[in-house]
């Protein structure tokens, strides 16, 4: 491959990130609307999207607070949803670990599902990229995504109050989550983890403070990890 300039690598990132606009725009719009319906003002809604910048965790915290769950339970559950960010961080480390601390801090803030997914593929395909080129690509992917995340949260928050009742918006959130869960079920281990999570959450729904969700989360994670080990050992035995 001919040597690429840092600038062309940046634009490659922008192009790879652009298709995600179709996901980001409706999702952040919905968060703005649902948050406003839950009684949050524009500043509170925007603070969520700017500080947390992770849709699933934002929706989780919002749902549990609306349910009247204790703040600590809402916080721990939303952080659990975001634990995958630690995995992204671990997996990006060999590629951008040489960058300065400030650059790594900014990259960490912008580590979202989409920037991680694009970057890890591009880094593996282009092992010759310098650290500057890797960062340029990463911030290229972020460019069409994160500003629109903020903007459409704001638009959602502004139009939220004008959405008529009777639109059954109570179910907007479950539908959004279910739509996200579908594509996550990539392997039998993921399916098993999800099934155990559902059953455990329903069985332990009687627990106070939404603790049933935390039990379900731990049970689901352990199920997924064990299922993965078991499936791998079966595969190895057959070879």
């Amino acid at each position, binding site marked *: 491959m001919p040597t690429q300039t840092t600038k062309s690598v940046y634009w490659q990132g922008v192009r790879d990130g652009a298709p995600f606009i179709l996901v980001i725009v409706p999702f952040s719009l919905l968060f703005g609307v649902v948050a406003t319906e839950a009684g949050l003002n524009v500043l509170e809604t925007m603070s969520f999207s700017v500080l947390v910048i992770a849709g699933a965790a934002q929706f989780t915290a919002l749902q549990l607070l609306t349910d009247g769950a204790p703040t600590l339970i809402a916080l721990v559950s939303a952080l659990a949803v975001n*634990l*995958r960010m630690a995995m992204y961080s*671990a997996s990006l480390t060999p590629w951008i*670990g040489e960058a300065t601390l400030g650059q790594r801090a900014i990259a960490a803030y912008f580590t979202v599902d989409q920037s991680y997914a694009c970057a890890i593929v591009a880094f593996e395909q282009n092992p010759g990229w310098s650290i500057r080129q890797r960062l340029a690509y990463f911030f290229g992917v972020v460019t069409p995504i994160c500003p629109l995340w903020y903007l459409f949260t704001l638009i959602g928050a502004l139009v939220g109050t004008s959405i008529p009742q009777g639109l059954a918006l109570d179910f907007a959130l479950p539908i*959004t989550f279910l*739509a996200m869960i*579908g594509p996550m079920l990539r392997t039998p281990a993921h399916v098993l983890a*999800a099934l155990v999570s559902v059953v455990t959450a329903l069985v332990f729904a009687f627990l106070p403070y939404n603790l049933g*969700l935390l039990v379900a989360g731990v049970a689901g994670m352990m199920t997924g990890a064990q299922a993965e080990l078991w499936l791998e050992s079966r595969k190895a035995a057959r070879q």
Partner: protein
Amino acid sequence: MNIETADLWFVIIALGLGSFGLRFVFTGLVGNRPLPPWLLRHLRYTAVAVLPGLVAPLVVWPAATGGSLDAPRMAAALVTLAVGYFLRNVIVAIVLGALTLYGGLALFG
């Protein structure tokens, strides 16, 4: 139900700091040291272990119907999950799920 302002800001700020911490913990602090495989194996399943458990009670006992099973909402949930799973497209799944919900509410609601 109204959310207490102080509680809300606590969650927003703590969740913001915590999420940054999770994103920074390895790139920023651990550097190039390898992680134990058992930890990575559990981290792979966090989202898929938490989100279904969060949604299940909302689908089975919807607050809008006072907690009783509701045919339009159940149908919408199943359609959304199936479309998301088979087409791997979040937006199409949301749209078809919402159409199922409104169709169901118009028919039975």
